[in-house]
């Protein structure tokens, strides 16, 4: 069992949990992830390591409530425990030789991009961070991102924070204005990553994306997480999750992510019934 030592609500759908997992904390690196199960019947679900504290022996995850498991996780409080917490999994990000980087987070992707920005910043790399949200109420990690970047641009789809547009629009503007980067890191919904890759391609800027296919074990034993990169099958859990975005087949990724739509809906309904059952009697 793994104890929750801190909980924060970052916006109505996004929560942060700091969890005691000393073995994982000792080895964790930016770019890696964990797989947890909330309880004995739970599904195995992956989350990026948003932060870690080797001395305290804790690992932080930031997640969005999108379905049954994440909603269940969202109900846990400080002092509660999760059943399983396995990691660190996946390959750590490598940034050797990078001097100037753009780190782009789309929505919740900001939480996944944050540890990478932090690492780059600590290596002395100049970081432009661009984060985007649907509206100003959904903005997360503003302070944290500002602390690890030389320049932070936050944009909203509806312009409610004063800047309107998608993260890809902002990046394009910067590039047109003459910004140049050794690497662009783009993390967010697949469609956003795809569009960012389309923006950087003509400039020949290396673009790293973090892929989030459906996973089971996270150790390379099921192949459920397979993605096509440069025409070859890769297992995102062991070969990634970071890949060269210009090589990724995003259409396939999006299609595979929708494989269990119907049973996911049923699962949320079931949980709702149970919760309401508890409340009503």
């Amino acid at each position: 069992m793994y104890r929750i030592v801190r909980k924060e609500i970052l916006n109505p759908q996004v929560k942060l949990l700091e969890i005691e997992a000393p073995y994982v904390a000792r080895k964790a690196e930016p770019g890696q992830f964990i797989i947890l199960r909330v309880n004995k019947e739970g599904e195995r679900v992956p989350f990026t390591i948003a932060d870690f504290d080797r001395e305290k022996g804790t690992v932080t995850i930031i997640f969005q409530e999108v379905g049954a498991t994440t909603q269940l996780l969202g109900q846990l409080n400080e002092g509660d425990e999760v059943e399983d917490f396995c990691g660190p999994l996946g390959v750590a990000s490598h940034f050797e030789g990078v001097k100037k980087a753009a780190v782009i987070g789309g929505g919740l992707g900001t939480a996944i991009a944050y540890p990478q920005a932090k690492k780059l910043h600590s290596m002395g790399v100049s970081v432009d961070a661009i984060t985007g949200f649907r509206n100003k109420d959904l903005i997360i990690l503003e302070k944290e991102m500002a602390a690890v970047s030389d320049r932070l641009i936050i944009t909203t789809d509806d312009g409610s924070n004063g800047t309107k547009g998608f993260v890809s629009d902002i990046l394009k503007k910067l590039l047109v204005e003459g910004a140049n980067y050794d690497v662009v890191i783009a993390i967010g919904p697949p469609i956003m990553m795809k569009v960012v890759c389309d923006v950087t391609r003509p400039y020949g800027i290396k673009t790293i994306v973090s892929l989030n296919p459906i996973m089971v074990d996270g150790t390379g034993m099921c192949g459920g997480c397979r993605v096509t990169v440069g025409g070859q099958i890769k297992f995102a859990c062991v070969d990634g999750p970071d890949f060269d975005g210009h090589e990724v087949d995003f259409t396939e990724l999006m299609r595979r992510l929708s494989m269990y739509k119907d049973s996911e809906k049923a699962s949320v309904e079931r949980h709702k019934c149970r919760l309401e059952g508890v409340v009503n009697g």
Partner: protein
Amino acid sequence: MANMSLKKVPIPEQDPKVRSKNFDEVALGYTEEMAVEEAKRCLNCKHKPCVSGCPVNVQIPEFISLIADGRFEEAYEKIIETNSLPAVCGRVCPQETQCEEKCVRGIKGEPVGIGRLERFAADWAMSNTKRTYKKVSKNGKKVAIVGSGPAGLSCAGDLIKMGYDVTIFEAFHLAGGVLVYGIPEFRLPKSLVQKEIETLLEQGVEIKTNMVIGKVLTIDEIFEEGYSAVFIGSGAGLPSFMHIPGENLNGVYSANEFLTRINLMKAYKEDAETPVMRGRSVAVIGGGNVAMDAARCALRLGADNVYIVYRRSEAEMPARLEEIHHAKEEGIIFKLLTNPTKILGDDKGWVKGMECVEMELGEPDASGRRRPIAKSGSEHVVDVDTVIIAIGTSPNPLIRSTTPDLATNKWGCIIADEQTGRTSKEGVFAGGDAVTGSATVILAMGAGKKAAKAIDEYIKSKN
């Protein structure tokens, strides 16, 4: 007086029509009377040919004559002198190519039902006796075991009895290896595997789950934690794909993924959190136990048609005879001498069919089996919405890629001495599928036992 019937005493089984809709165990096991009657078919041969067919040398005629005498507990004790997982082996060993193949009664008629009797003795002991353990004095040395499949479990079982502190590191959230994630409930009830694992826990073995060695700790870091030796029993869990067009369509699974969702994550239960696709028409590619298990699971999830698509003929199928027989009884359709060339998708990217060619057998290949060759012009499409690929697995690279001084062969298998499990790295032993590639439960168990003995000798030699 020996029972001279040419046939084994039949084992009660669930009716195929009923069992193809549930996940309960297929074979129900002998009653005491049936076991005694079958045991009396054994001629108690002096030269014991059957024992030479058993990879761990179970004293077969001895335990069978104890059953014939109604001394069931002693029969069980006799088996576990050499086999620590009899309830498992009695159910899943390929007896027809091991002990029973050598049985004299098999020359004319059916061999003695050694597997069924082994299972009987184990099940009888489980429900009628309480296991007690001799108190062993601890020797203060720690041994680490990577992986909790049959190899790791049997190695742990022997080392704990020798007085070592034993810690098993398991990547999954649950111990048992293929016994819990691969082999389905209807063939090997999970409660039984759980009992075997509890036996180890009661004796003091520590199991640390969620520990992916190579990631959370390397082999060298395990030594830094004060362990005197490490046994690697990490299995052969990396699934092979066919590299044909359409393999990434929605509805294509590796057998590992399909079976893990069903067995480990319990996706066959209506209210399970983990989903699995319930196909209407399912093709399983391959001819081994894994393929049979996947096909029979798909059927139980409600498929109308389930095909086994295998490129050679039935004679070359590596699956246990009993599984092939059970699969046919349940209505699985065997498409033999057939090889898939392409998986077809609809405009939304879901599987809608599979293109295959017919094969014929040519000259024997390196494996001694006749090589299948495609017949030209035999292309045809099979109507399926789910495809499960069960063409084999190889060892996962996580450990070898983080342990540079551990020698492996070109298939990624760890190179280890057959008698001792000793590897190229000092203090590191290995056995089971991680060394041999996919093999059997009994071979993995045997390797774990041999390594336990060698580890004991190694540690003593260091003092």
